């Protein structure tokens, strides 16, 4: 795969060793990375902590990043590694899964909508992590299969099949839920 042109200003700033690269990386990646981390960790608070770790790691590895063939895949790989490490630590500390604040919200804040958000969180949490990542990036970040494949460094067919399996499960689990 080719280099993404949107990464060119970041590459240039990294090549100059210019701290302004931090802002550029934030503007380009923070939203998607935050969604990705929330999908992995299922907790907004933890996702915020890990996002900070990811940015620190990116800065520390900026010379590697400047020479990386695909900057976006490299950034996501860092995020995945940091989130996995964090999840392992969290699992050792807490016996149960995260019980923090909700990571999904519904626009109209009525009680029925809050309940719907909770139900969606529950069913998404039941999905395997890889399928959940694809669903979150596709539904909530409106990425195409091609873009997701590029970010996760897997084939487009793999992304499509993960999405299909996830949809099959969600169809069953959400059968009785009405929007």
């Amino acid at each position, binding site marked *: 795969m080719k280099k993404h042109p949107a990464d060119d200003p970041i590459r240039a700033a990294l090549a100059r060793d210019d701290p302004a690269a931090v802002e550029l990386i934030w503007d380009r990646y923070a939203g998607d990375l935050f969604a990705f981390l929330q999908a992995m960790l299922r907790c907004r608070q933890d996702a*915020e902590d890990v996002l900070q770790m990811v940015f620190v790691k990116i*800065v520390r590895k900026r010379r590697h990043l400047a020479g990386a063939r695909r900057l976006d895949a490299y950034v996501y790989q860092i995020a995945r590694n940091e989130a996995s490490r964090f999840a392992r630590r969290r699992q050792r500390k807490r016996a149960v899964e995260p019980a923090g604040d909700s990571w999904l919200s519904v626009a109209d804040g009525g009680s029925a909508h809050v309940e*719907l958000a909770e139900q969606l969180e529950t069913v998404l949490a039941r999905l395997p992590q890889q399928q959940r990542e694809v669903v979150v990036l596709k539904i909530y970040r409106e990425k195409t299969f091609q873009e997701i494949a590029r970010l996760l460094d897997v084939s487009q067919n793999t992304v499509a099949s993960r999405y299909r399996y996830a949809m099959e499960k969600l*169809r069953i689990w*959400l059968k009785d839920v009405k929007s």
Partner: protein
Amino acid sequence: MSHARDENDKVERLLQAARLSEPSGQLKDRVTGAAREAWRQGAADVPWRVPLRRVAVSAVAAALIVSLANLAADVSVVRGQTEAARVAHREVAELEAVPEEVYGSVTRRLLAANFRAYEAAAERLEQYRQQMRQVLDEAQENGVTNPPRAPNGRSRLLPVPSASEAYS
């Protein structure tokens, strides 16, 4: 097929009713602040140094392993040679006294059997030598031209050519 697609659309619409929260401005300040602080502290190694360092460490480790293996081989060979030399001069009966840690029971039995085979061969050779001596003595007593008859009509001595054949 279309039914499944409709079902998928329904699930997607249901999921789209919710949304993921975007990173807040406060989070941006916190994260970029930490990142800038990390920037000031410096970067990790440049990429080309990492594989170079790995190669150097691997080479040192390989050299260490090879030298240790050589040393171990030398030590075991020297120990084996001295033991072998000592054992070679012992009688068969003494093999029982060979330390257990040097030769196992199977090796010891094999060695004993080997020595017994050599001993038996030496005894047979000595018997043959005595037999031959006896035959030669008898031949000398009876005169060279009249050797004793061999069993089964076959001589146990090499055929002696006659005088006429020898000078022809």
